[in-house]
Structures are given as C-alpha cells and as structure tokens.
C-alpha cells in the first residue's frame, strides 16, 4: 500500500492534527496537551514582550521550536498591514517562512475578511513566505487563494471558538475536490466526532485549539483528537460502504437450521 504522507509546502508532518497553543491554564498544561495530541506542528501568536515582568515564563521554554514546528499566525489582525507586519516579525525571529495568515473582518463573528486575506496572501507569496490561509468556506474564494499561491487552504467549519462543527459540508466537499494544496479545517471543531467527520470527508488535516483547551481535561481531549484524526483518515482511505436504504443481513441464509 502506498504510504500516506501529509505534506504542507514540502514539509512532511507525521500528524494530520495541528494544535493551537492558546487558552490553556498554563504552559505546563499546553506542553502536556500537545505531547498527548501527537501533533508535530503548533500555531503560535506574536505579541509584545512584557518587559516589566522578567521572570514570567515563556512559551519557548516549554515547547522547543527545534523539536516541534512553530506555525506563526496572525490571530487578532484586522487588516492586511497588521498581518504582514506580524508575519515579517515572525520570520525575523527565527527564519519562519511557513506561516498561517488570518485577517479577521469582524469582532463578533471573527469571520475572515477575504478581500484583505487575498491581498495579503499575494504579498506574502511574493516575499517568499509559504502561506497557510484561514478562509471562509466559499469554494470560489478558496480557489482564488490557491491561484495566488496559498500553500494550504484552511476553511472554517464554523466560527472560531464556537465548537459547532462543520456547518456547510457541501462547501467543504467542493473545496476538497477542487484543491491541489492541502485542505485543513480551521476553527469551529467542537469534539472528536467533528474531527472524524472532517477527515472522513477527505480533509488533509484539522487544526484544533479551543476544543482541547476548553475541555474539562485538555490532556485527555488532546489524545482523543489524535485518535479521531487517525480514525477519520483511515476510514477515508478505506472508503466507506455504500449506503443502503433497506436491511441486508450480515450472515448467510444458506444452511439455516
């Protein structure tokens, strides 16, 4: 059997689960949850250092960027210029070229502003970045992103932090079908079954943050997502049985006593 390899912009990843590092109780919990998720890529945000508190622990003390791939994101950016500034700083920090772009359009919905997103993707690709792009589940806009050089299409399942799962399966399926770059569900996954559904549909991966960090036992939930992503992927590769709208017995009738 052909080996099932997951690659984003030529980077081979062992796990199809990408995990966010926000919202955890502390860095210790972050590190334990990520370990138990099996993810080898994590998203991180860029923020000002708190210069007054010199003893404050920092993320890199708990998650070694040499051992796990940091994917800098632009969470919290509402314009192209803010997003570009953030990612240029991220690249300066340690040479990160693979980044996650998200340009938000509205504080209430945290929906992506696709005009600014497209504009930023073009600029970043030109500057040599490999851009994984958070986007709406609109197939036409997803195609445009791919055309301007996005390295991965990351449609939302439902609003960020909502935990409502995939709301528009038909759009996600269309995007999976048309895309030549990986399609990774970003935002809105609520629990393990949502991730299984996404993977069974043929998504290349899922990105989870709130569903793990906001669960009662994040470390256990992280493991649950690890298994869900593997189970869903295997089911997709195996190919599900045909749906029959009548019963078909599992045991042969021949030889019945």
């Amino acid at each position, binding site marked *: 059997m052909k080996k099932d390899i997951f690659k984003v912009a030529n980077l081979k990843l062992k796990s199809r689960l990408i995990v966010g590092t926000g*919202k955890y109780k502390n860095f210790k919990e972050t590190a334990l949850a990520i370990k138990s998720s099996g993810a080898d890529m994590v998203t991180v945000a860029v923020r*000002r250092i708190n210069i007054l508190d010199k003893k404050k622990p920092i993320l890199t003390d708990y998650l070694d960027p040499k051992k796990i791939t940091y994917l800098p994101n632009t969470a919290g950016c509402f314009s192209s210029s803010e997003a570009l500034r953030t990612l240029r700083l991220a690249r300066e920090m340690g040479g990160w070229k693979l980044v996650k772009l998200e340009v938000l359009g509205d504080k209430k919905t945290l929906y992506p502003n696709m005009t600014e997103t497209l504009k930023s993707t073009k600029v970043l690709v030109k500057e040599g970045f490999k851009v994984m792009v958070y986007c709406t589940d609109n197939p036409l806009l997803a195609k445009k992103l791919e055309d301007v050089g996005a390295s991965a299409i990351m449609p939302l399942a439902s609003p960020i932090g909502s935990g409502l799962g995939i709301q528009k399966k038909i759009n996600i399926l269309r995007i999976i079908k048309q895309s030549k770059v990986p399609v990774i569900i970003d935002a809105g996954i609520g629990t393990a079954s949502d991730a299984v559904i996404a993977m069974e549909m043929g998504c290349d991966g899922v990105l989870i943050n709130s569903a793990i960090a906001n669960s009662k036992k994040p470390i256990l939930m992280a493991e649950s997502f690890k298994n869900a992503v593997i189970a869903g992927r295997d089911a997709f590769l195996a190919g599900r049985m045909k749906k029959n709208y009548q019963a078909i017995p599992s045991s042969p009738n021949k030889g019945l006593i």
Partner: protein
Amino acid sequence: MAKIQLNGKKITIRSKVSIRDILKKYKLDNKKVAIELNGTIIAKDNFKKKYLKNNDKLEIVHFIGGG
C-alpha cells in the same frame, strides 16, 4: 539621556545605548525576539550597532500561545 518608547511604555535610557544593551538590561535572549524600531524591522546582526535616540519607538515581540 534619551526618552524612548519601549513596547508602548515611556522609559529613559542613557545615551549611547544599543538595542543589544536594551535586551541585556531586560535579560532577553536575542534568539527568541524580533525587533521593530520606528516601524522598521531590525535584523539580529544589527542589534549591536543600532543605537537608540530620543523619541525612538522600540517594539520587542516574541511568540506566545495562540490558536
């Protein structure tokens, strides 16, 4: 003496202070930060020779947890 803004806070520094000196003062590892001076990103190699002057705006950022 020079007055600068560091991450939005006004601070006073001695004259002839470089970016590297600031990082040392706040015990920051230059490998784990990125720096913007008056809106322009400063490459790590230039931390030592870039001196701060009155009214400079310095931003020091790093990675934190995020989704």
